[in-house]
Every structure is written in C-alpha cells, then in structure tokens.
C-alpha cells in the first residue's frame, strides 16, 4: 500500500505548494513565470539528451520483433506489417503502433481459477483504456493551442468542435475531459485489482497517473466549477509564446496549481517511463525492417580480420596434401 500512498501524498503536496505560495505569499511571478520557463528548458534539454543518447548507440544487427511470416520466396505471401521487409513497412508499423497500440491489442491474460482450472484468453481492456487515455491527452493538448495562438490552427477547429458536440453545460462540456479522467481511474484500478499487477507495479507507475489525474482535475475545476479568468490567463500564455517575462495578472490560485503540476510533469518526463513517447520511435525492435536474409549486416565495431579462404590454403599446401594422400579440390 505504501507504494500507492507515497506517490499520492507527493502529488497532493505538489498541489498544495503553489496554492499556498500564491494565495498566501503572493508568489505568482515565481509560479507563473520562472517555474514554467525553467521546466520548459529542462524538458527540452532532457528530452534531447535522452534522444541523442539513444541515437548514438550503434544497432549493428536486425533485432526486429516479428509476429508474422518473413519475406522469403516470391510465391510465399509474407506479413508486411508484422515482419516488415522494407524501412517503409517498418515505419508504417511504428506509426500504427503509435496511433493504434497494435501490440497491446494482442494482450493476453492467463489466470488460475478456482479448483484445477486455468484460463488463457485475449484481454482487450488495457488496449482500450490506454487508447482512450492517450487519445484524450492528445486532443486535450491540441485544444490548449487556443491559449498560444491568436487564431486557432485550422486543423484543430474540427477536433474542438467534435469534442464539444454534446453542447451540455456552459462553457461547453468537452467529452475528452470525462474520458481522460475515466481512463486514468481505470488504469489505476487495473493495477490495484490484480494481485500479479499489484506486485510488479512500482511507485513510479502510480506517480505519473496521479500527476496527470491531478492536472486534469485542476483543469476541469477551472473550466466548469470555480472558473478562472481566461482573458488574463491568455495574456500570460501568449507571453509564453513570445518569450516575455511580464508578470501575470490577477489569476485564481487553481490556475497556478494546474500550471505547476504541468511544470512538474515536464521536468519529470525526460527522466522517467514517460519517455516511452520518444522511445517508441527509436526502439530497434520496432523501427528496423527484418531483412537479414536479403542483406548482410556487418557489425561496425568488428576488428578488421585478415581472412584466409580454403582455396588460398589449398594453394599453399597442395603438394604436401597430395603427398600425405589428402583429397584436394583442384589438381
């Protein structure tokens, strides 16, 4: 239980810090300007560091994970997606993984049942929950463009309109706000419910869930319940996109909680499991094509070895071999 409660306590503390500091100590410049810029700088440099660190590791061999027939003879059909033969096919596979989580779709569950019973079945819940969670986060992220642009980029408008089509409440209710909270709750409960998962889950699995959940709750509160002044907030965020250091206007503390948690997330991101966002594009088991049979891949850090072929060997020792009665290939 401690590994669940600790991250929860940390997140609650993180909510409290900006609230108290802004509300009672007037630290709005610190939490509205300095912390976000510092977090953005750490985020960008951290992510770049991790990516370059991965990019500079050599990948001498094809270690593609495959789940289908490899390309061999022309008349044997092969699986373009699950055993890609060209870089293009491999990238299509990466993109489908990123957008549809194909590997999670294959998820299985194995369970011991009461009495001597064992079930082995397909389990789609993680796939569905993960998909709902990530897609909502993407849509929510895109929607936030309204704070950083004078005019919304064209392709975001239909996303926004679709998201609010239910036209409940004022300001209009966004579907993804509910979906992301439901999905985060599901992903959390999923870890608690199953004994096996409970054991392998670490505090670092719970912390990002709680953090993202808290960010969403603060955002929802600010939009539908306690309201913060969007005009002043937009003045601040437009300042961010112009790199200005103007002090923020009078904004409700809940906004600073939201912003501070996002800053924490940004700083935490490069150094945690959240880097799977960049890693998925760079993992050699997915972005390499399986063409070891068509193309010879030479390990670049092999020492240069002087090879000697059998033919050369025989040329040198042919007479001696004949004398000893050994068979030779060339007379």
């Amino acid at each position, binding site marked *: 239980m401690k590994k669940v409660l600790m991250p929860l306590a940390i997140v609650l503390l993180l909510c409290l810090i900006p609230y108290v500091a802004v509300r009672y100590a007037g630290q709005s410049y610190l939490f509205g300007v300095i912390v976000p810029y510092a977090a953005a700088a750490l985020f960008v440099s951290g992510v770049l560091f991790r990516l370059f660190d991965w990019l500079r590791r050599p990948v001498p061999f094809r270690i593609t994970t495959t789940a289908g027939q490899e390309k061999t003879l022309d008349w044997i059909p092969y699986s373009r997606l699950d055993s890609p033969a060209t870089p293009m096919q491999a990238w299509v596979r990466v993109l489908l993984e990123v957008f549809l989580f194909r590997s999670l779709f294959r998820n299985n569950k194995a369970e011991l049942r009461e009495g001597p019973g064992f079930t082995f079945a397909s389990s789609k819940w993680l796939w569905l929950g993960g998909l709902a969670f990530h897609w909502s986060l993407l849509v929510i992220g895109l929607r936030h463009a309204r704070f950083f642009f004078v005019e919304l980029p064209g392709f975001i408008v239909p996303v926004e309109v679709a998201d609010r089509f239910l036209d409940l409440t*004022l300001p209009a209710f966004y579907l993804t706000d509910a979906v992301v909270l439901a999905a985060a709750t599901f992903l959390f409960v999923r870890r608690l419910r199953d004994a096996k998962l409970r054991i392998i889950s670490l505090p670092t699995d719970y912390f990002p869930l709680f953090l993202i959940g808290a960010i969403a709750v603060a955002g929802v509160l600010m939009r539908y319940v306690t309201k913060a002044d969007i005009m002043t907030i937009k003045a601040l965020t437009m300042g961010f996109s112009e790199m200005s250091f103007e002090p923020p206007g009078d904004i409700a503390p809940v906004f600073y909680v939201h912003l501070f948690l996002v800053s924490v997330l940004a700083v935490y991101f490069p150094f945690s499991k959240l880097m799977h966002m960049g890693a998925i594009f760079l993992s050699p088991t997915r972005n390499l094509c399986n063409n070891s049979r068509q193309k010879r891949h030479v390990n670049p850090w092999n020492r240069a070895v002087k090879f000697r072929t059998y033919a050369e060997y025989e040329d040198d020792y042919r007479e001696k071999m004949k004398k000893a009665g050994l068979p030779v290939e060339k007379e």
Partner: protein
Amino acid sequence: MSNRISAILALLIAGAMFVAALLFMQSVHGASSALRAAAPVAVARQVPIDSTRCIASTVYMKSHHMQLLNQWRHDSVRKGNRAHVTSDGRRFDKSLNTCLGCHASNPMFCFMCHEYANVKPTCWNCHISPMEATR
C-alpha cells in the same frame, strides 16, 4: 459462426439502447412541459434601472458570465422563473436580450473577448446577436 451471433447481439443491444434513450427523453420532456404549465411565468417588474453597473461585480462577470447565462437559461426555459434580482435589489428579465439592453452600444462587446480567447458560443445561431441588435 459465433462472430455472426455476437454481431446480431450487438445490433439488438444497440437497438434496445436507442429505444430506451428515446423513451427516456420522451418522459423527461413530458415532465418539464407539465412543470411549465404549472408554474406561471414571472415577469420582471419594469423599473428604471441603473445601467452603470453590471448585474454582478465586473470581476465576477468577467470570468463567470457563462455560468450565469447557463443558470438563467435553465431558470427561464425549464422552470419558468424569469425574474433575476441582483444583490443590490435591481430586477432583470432572465434573458440574453437583457445583456444587450445595456451592452448594445458596443456591437463587438461579446465578440472582442471571445475572438481573443478563441471561444465561439453557439448562442447566436438562434438568439439575436449584439451586432444585429444595433443595426
């Protein structure tokens, strides 16, 4: 085979849910019109009003006007209660047109902010907008 059965089942369930939703909406609708018939529409008393102050503090209006409008819409359309009394005792009709009564001098009043904040309320699809009101 089992695939086809589950497809048929899914269709049946979807159909049942659709019918249930229809029935639900029907019943809710019936209830609200019954309520409307019961509650006489309270009309705001016409008294000269002080138009130098908004119906709530400016700071509050700035961030909460949509919640207030939502409340007004609910009260007048669903409950038939159209009279709004401000904290300083002025009376207003709970209607979008009330806002325009004071804010019509600047036809861009609602739009300036919304343009800046990238919000597009759907209200003007049906209601008269400040731009049309001043024309």
